[in-house]
C-alpha cells in the first residue's frame, strides 16, 4: 500500500530525513518510535504533503501512485489520513462543519454523493459516542479550548468519520489519561481491517500493548535504524535508545 524508498527531506534547507525505507502493506500496523527530533513528525508531514517539507531524494508510492505528485487534499481523498501531534485550533469553524465539509469532499471524490444532514448527524453522533466524546464538542470550534487529550480524541473522531485506507497517527497517545488511551486504542482497533494499514508514531509502549502492532521501527537521525516486532518496544522501554543509535544502520522495514 505504501512504499517509501530512500526518502531524503529537508526543512529550511536543513536535512532532516536521510534515507528512510518503509513498506506498509494493507492490513498491517507499523509503529515508529525514536528519540525527540529524529524526524518522526517530519516523515508524517512529508507523507501528508505539508508545504516547506522538501523531498530532495527518494520516492513514495501509495497504492502504486506517486504520492509526492499529489496535493495534500488529493492524498486525503485517495485515502491517507494524518492525525496531528499538535492538532490545530480553528476559531470560527465548528467541528461539525469541518467534519461535514471533509466527509463530503471525500465522498464526492469517491463518487458516493453528499451525505444528507440527518444521516450525517446520526453518523457523527454515533462515532462521538463510541469515542466517549460529549456531543457538545461537535458544536464547538475545531479544537479551540479543548484540552490536550480532547484534541487527540477529536483527531480519532475525524479518522473514524473519514474511514481512510492508510492512517498515520503522530503521538496520538501523548496527553491522554489512562481511560482515554483505552478509548483511543479501541477506536483504532475498531478500524483495523485487512484493507487498512496504520503507521503509529509513539513514545510509549502502553498504546502498543493495546494495539499489538505487526512491526516496530526505530527512527534515529532521519533513518530507520532498527526494525522488529513488539518485543523491540519492550527493549526500548527498558533500555532507552542509546544502545540502538550506536548499532550499525541499514535495517529495512
Amino acid at each position, binding site marked *: 500500500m505504501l512504499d517509501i524508498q530512500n526518502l531524503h527531506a529537508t526543512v529550511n534547507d536543513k536535512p532532516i530525513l536521510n534515507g528512510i525505507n518503509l513498506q506498509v502493506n494493507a492490513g498491517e500496523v507499523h509503529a515508529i518510535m525514536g528519540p525527540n527530533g529524529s524526524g518522526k513528525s517530519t516523515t508524517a508531514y512529508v507523507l501528508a504533503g505539508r508545504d516547506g517539507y522538501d523531498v530532495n531524494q527518494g520516492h513514495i508510492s501509495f497504492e502504486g501512485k506517486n504520492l509526492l505528485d499529489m496535493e495534500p487534499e488529493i492524498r486525503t481523498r485517495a485515502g491517507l489520513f494524518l492525525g496531528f501531534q499538535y492538532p490545530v485550533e480553528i476559531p470560527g469553524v465548528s467541528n461539525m462543519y469541518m467534519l461535514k465539509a471533509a466527509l463530503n469532499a471525500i465522498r464526492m471524490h469517491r463518487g458516493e454523493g453528499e451525505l444528507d444532514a440527518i444521516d450525517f448527524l446520526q453518523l457523527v453522533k454515533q462515532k462521538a459516542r463510541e469515542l466517549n466524546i460529549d456531543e457538545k464538542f461537535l458544536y464547538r470550534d475545531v479544537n479551540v479550548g479543548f484540552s490536550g487529550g480532547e484534541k487527540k480524541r477529536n483527531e480519532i473522531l475525524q479518522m473514524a468519520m*473519514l474511514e481512510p485506507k492508510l492512517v498515520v497517527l503522530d503521538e496520538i497517545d501523548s496527553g491522554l489519561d489512562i481511560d482515554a488511551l483505552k478509548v483511543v486504542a479501541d477506536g483504532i482497533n475498531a478500524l483495523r481491517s485487512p484493507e487498512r494499514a496504520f503507521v503509529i508514531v509513539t513514545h510509549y509502549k502502553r498504546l502498543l500493548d493495546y494495539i499489538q502492532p505487526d512491526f516496530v521501527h526505530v527512527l534515529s537521525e532521519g533513518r530507520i535504524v532498527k526494525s522488529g516486532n513488539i518485543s523491540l518496544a519492550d527493549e526500548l522501554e527498558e533500555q532507552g535508545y542509546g544502545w540502538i543509535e550506536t548499532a550499525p544502520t541499514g535495517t529495512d522495514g
Partner: protein
Amino acid sequence: MEMATQNPIQHFSTDQLNHLQDQLNGMHLPWLAERRQHALSRFIETGFPGRKHEEWRYTPTRDIEKHDFKPVTSPTLVDTNVILKHQISNALTLVFVDGFFQPDLSRIDTSALPVTVTNLASALDQFPDLVETHLDSINQNHHGFCYLNSAFFNDGLFVHIPEFTALDIPIHVIHAGSTSDAMISTRNLVIAEQDSSCHIIETWISNDTPRLTNSVTEMIAADNARIEMNNIQDQGNNSYHISTTWSQLANSAQLTHHGFNFGGQLVRNDINTLLGNNAKCRHSGLTVTRHNQHIDNHLRIEHLYPEASSQVLYKNIADDKSRAVFQGCIVVHKDAQQTDSNMSNPNLLLSNDAIINTKPQLQIDADDVQCAHGVTVGELEQSALFFLRSRGLDEHTARNILTFAFANETIQDITSTELKSMVLDKLLTHFPQSAIRVDWL
C-alpha cells in the same frame, strides 16, 4: 465670499446654493434655515478635510472633490424589487431613494404603538420643538462633510421612544438610489427617553453610478435607555459614502452598534460615542474590501463619567489592491474612574497588494481604569490551511472557510436572526465558487 479651492458645489453660485437650500424640507422654520445657512458658509470656509487633517491622513478626499456631485431635487426611481429584497419582515420600514422619502414603499404604521417613528421631514412639521431641541445637540460638526450635511440634509429617520417604553420590532431604514453624480445628504435623529429601548437597522444600497452619500446620525439615550444600531453598507462600486454617527449615553444607558461594510468605492464612517455614568457601549464591525475599494472606520469613544464600559471589535479583510483603515481612539476623561474599555482590531490581508492602516489610541486622564487594546495584521494561518487540506478540502475552499471564520465572529453578534442571515448571505457572495455551505453552519 471666497470659495474653498474645490468642492462638490463649486459649480454653483451663492444664489444657486441658497436657492437649492430653499427647496429643502423644513425651511419654513427660521431656526433651521439659519442653521443651514450658517453651515453652508462654514463649509465654504473649511472645504473638505485634507491630508493635513490628522484624522483624515489615510483617507484622501481628492476623488470626491474631482467629481461634480450635485444636490438632487428629485429622485430617480429604482427597481422596487431590489428594495423589497432587502426588507426585513415585521419591521417598521422607511425607504429613501436618493435621500427622498418613499411613503408608498415604506411601512411605518405606529398607530397602535406609543412611539414616533417617521421621516425627519414629517417630524419637522409635527414636532418642530422636539426636533429643534435635539437636532445638532450632540453633532459637533467636526469636519467639512458634517457642515455640508447640515447645510443640505433634506430628510432621514426620526425616532422618539417615550420613557419606560420598549419598541420590540426593529426599525429598518433602506437607502437606495441611482441618480448619477448625486450628492445625497441624510440626517437621522433618534431620541430614546429614560428606560426605553429600540432597535434600528440601516441598509445602504445603490447601483454602480457615481454618487456621494453623506449621512449624519444623532442618537440620544437618556438614563437606562438601550439602543441597538446595525449599519449595512453595501453600495455600488462607484459610491462615495461618508457617515458620521454621534451617540450620547446618559447614566446606565446602553448602545450596541454594528457596522458592516461591503460596498462603496471610498467609505468613511466616523463613529463618536459619549458615555455617561455607568453607560455601556459595544461597537463591532466587519469591513471587507476588494478591487480598489477604500473603507475607513474611525471611532472615538469618550468616557466622561465614572464606571462606563466600552467594547470595540472591528475586523477588516482586505483583498486585491484595496485598503482598509481603522482608527480607534478611547478617551478617558479625568472624572471617568473605573472605566472599563477594550478595543480589538484584527486584520486579515488576503493579497500582497492590499493595505491595512490601523491606529488604536488611548488617551487616559484618570488613574483607576482598565483599558486594553490589541491590533493584529496577518494572513491566513498556514497551519490551519494545511489542516483543512489534510482533511480533504481543496485549497480554495480551505482559504474561504478560514476567511469566513475570521469574519463570522462579528456576524454572530447580530441579534436579529433575519438580519444575521442577510449579512451572512452578503458575506458569502464574496466567495463565489466556494463550498461554504450556509445550510451547514
